[in-house]
């Protein structure tokens, strides 16, 4: 247990490599937690099927229309149970069909290969992931916080009846929001496919971490989800160098600390 004594500080180039890898993982966390934050912030649904939809893709809008819209007005727990149940069913169906071993999925030809940066070999595909994720994250933040459409959305969450009275189709807008949120999850899933194993369970392995990221950033805070996604990717990456045994728990330790100090999360708007 007392492996701490064995910790050696790696040389600087090694550290750069690890930081970069942390950023790549952070990109996935940011995109997934962003989708969750959009759905929670605007629809008040704790979307536990987010992981399954990361696997499944944008099939989510149909689910919103059929099932999820019936629980918007109820306590969060109903939404949570519903989406968790959906996740189990979706994963079960896929496992039945494809088995849990997963399927190979290769990197697109144009993005294979990599660059030797001197301190590490950076696969092109991973560099692309960072750039793409940064663009999507910024775009989402911009749409919701800085455009007229975003203003409608935020208004519709505050007071749907009033917004509807102005002639805006609120139910459709909400369906599209859910679709957009899970679309982000699906996109992250597609980007992750060549790196990780593509399997029915790929989402449940990530969902708990992503929820922790969202809680740390502040439930519903778009900016919080993006920043904490990237930051936690980096912190997790560093844990893997200094004390790898703890790398799967580091994020949760941080979550506990953040919740003790700022119960609403780093960027939350109050409990």
């Amino acid at each position, binding site marked *: 247990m007392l492996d701490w004594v064995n910790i050696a500080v790696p040389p600087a180039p090694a550290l750069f490599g690890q930081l970069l*890898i942390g950023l790549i993982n952070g990109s996935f966390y940011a995109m997934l937690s962003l989708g969750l934050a959009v759905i929670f912030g605007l629809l008040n649904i704790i979307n536990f099927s987010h992981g399954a939809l990361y696997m499944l893709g944008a099939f989510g809008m149909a689910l919103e229309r059929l099932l999820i819209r019936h629980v918007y007005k109820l306590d969060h*727990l109903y939404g*949570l149970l519903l989406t968790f149940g959906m996740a189990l069913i979706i994963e079960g169906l896929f496992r039945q069909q494809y088995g849990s071993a997963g399927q190979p999925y290769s990197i697109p030809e144009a993005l294979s290969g990599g660059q030797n940066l001197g301190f590490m070999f950076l696969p092109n595909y991973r560099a692309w992931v960072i750039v793409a994720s940064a663009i999507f994250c910024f775009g989402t933040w911009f749409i919701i916080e800085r455009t007229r459409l975003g203003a409608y959305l935020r208004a519709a969450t505050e007071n749907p009846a009033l917004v509807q009275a102005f002639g805006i189709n609120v139910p459709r807008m909400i369906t599209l929001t859910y679709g957009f949120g899970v679309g982000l999850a699906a996109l992250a899933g597609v980007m992750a496919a060549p790196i990780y194993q593509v399997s029915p369970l790929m989402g449940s392995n990530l969902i708990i971490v992503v929820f922790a990221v969202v809680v740390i950033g502040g439930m519903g805070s778009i900016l919080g989800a993006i920043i904490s996604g990237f930051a936690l990717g980096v912190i997790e990456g560093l844990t893997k160098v200094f004390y790898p045994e703890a790398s799967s728990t580091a994020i949760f330790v941080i979550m506990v600390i953040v919740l003790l100090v700022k119960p609403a999360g780093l960027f939350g708007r109050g409990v």
Partner: protein
Amino acid sequence: MKLRSLISAASVAVLLGAASSPAAHADGKTVKIGVLNDMSSVYSYLGGMGSVAAAQMAVKDFGGKVLGKPIEIVYADHQNKPDVGVAIASKWFDEDGVDAILDLPTSSVAIAVQKVAQDRGKVDIISNGGSSELTNKFCSPTGVHWTYDTYQLAHVIGGAVVKQGGKTWFFITADYAFGHQLQDDTAAVVKAAGGTVVGSVNVPLNNADFSSFLLQAQQSKAQIIGLANAGGDTVNSIKQASEFGIVQGGQRLAGLLVFIADVDALGLKTAQGLLLSESYYWDQNDQTRAFAKKFEAAYNGKVPTSGQAGVYTAVMHYLKAMQAAKSEDGAKVVAQMRAMPINDFMTRNGKLRIDGRVIRDVYLFQVKKPEESKYPYDYYKQLAMIPGDQAFRPLSESECPLVKK
């Protein structure tokens, strides 16, 4: 408010994830065999429901009855957690009248469950579990280690790699009983052959991203990166190693435990050239092919892993021994299993040793290049056959208290 919901959410999730085992009745009128393994996570495709299907096939092929009683298969998911495994095993033995527990991947769970079985004089037969300590320090008079173990993997694969010139090693190790044992067993082989271990990193089980660990391995400049892990962890590490140009950089990967389902998930393009050691490959002869065909028909067209083939043959041998011993008593049945030679599609004149280790010939395979593969699942070429008495730990080195010296 939101925070409180989230906390209740977390507890709900924990409750929903808890184990559930199928209902069963302890009436002494049936012989019950429990298949206990990972059904939902990183190892589920190596055993999982496929092992249940294999056990059911064996019961059917045996005739459905032993000592005049019908045979029933029950199964549960131990979630790779020793506490969950122990709880299920105790309930099965104490309340549900289960006679034997099979499969038991995840060595930490296997070690714990073997103790539960030993305390009750019940039988456990490990097929997908790997730690060689199961028949060494933790050996049990009613415990059987059927298919493979870390000592064999270390000697067959580690030995072959060192012989090809791989002298310096860095290990990426799954951080629990199995991974540590596999690393220790392999390191011993490497050192005995004059090689050195330049470093290692312990990775939590079921890890999605290995890039950080691969980078450490790359910077160690070791010739060989030994993967002392299994299942989804092995697949992810090999896949990501190819992405980071590890092999192009002159280092070689040694997957110490690779199953055919892993090769299938990797694809031949990524997996080609890997060495692996198994006791069963479907395309070895008419008998192995016949079993694979039957299994594929019973289980969604999937090719059987050696672990699943092991569950089938283990159930068969167990039932034959029970029939011959005319008793359901664990100690008597295992004594009979020792007395009878093991002969089936994957075993020629195998024997069950006093320490619980099954001794049979094992094989060294290499994964084919994509252009060498002619039909579905045509994945391996056989490089060598290693006689059982050379592949497994000799009794002279055993620390098992059952071995008299």
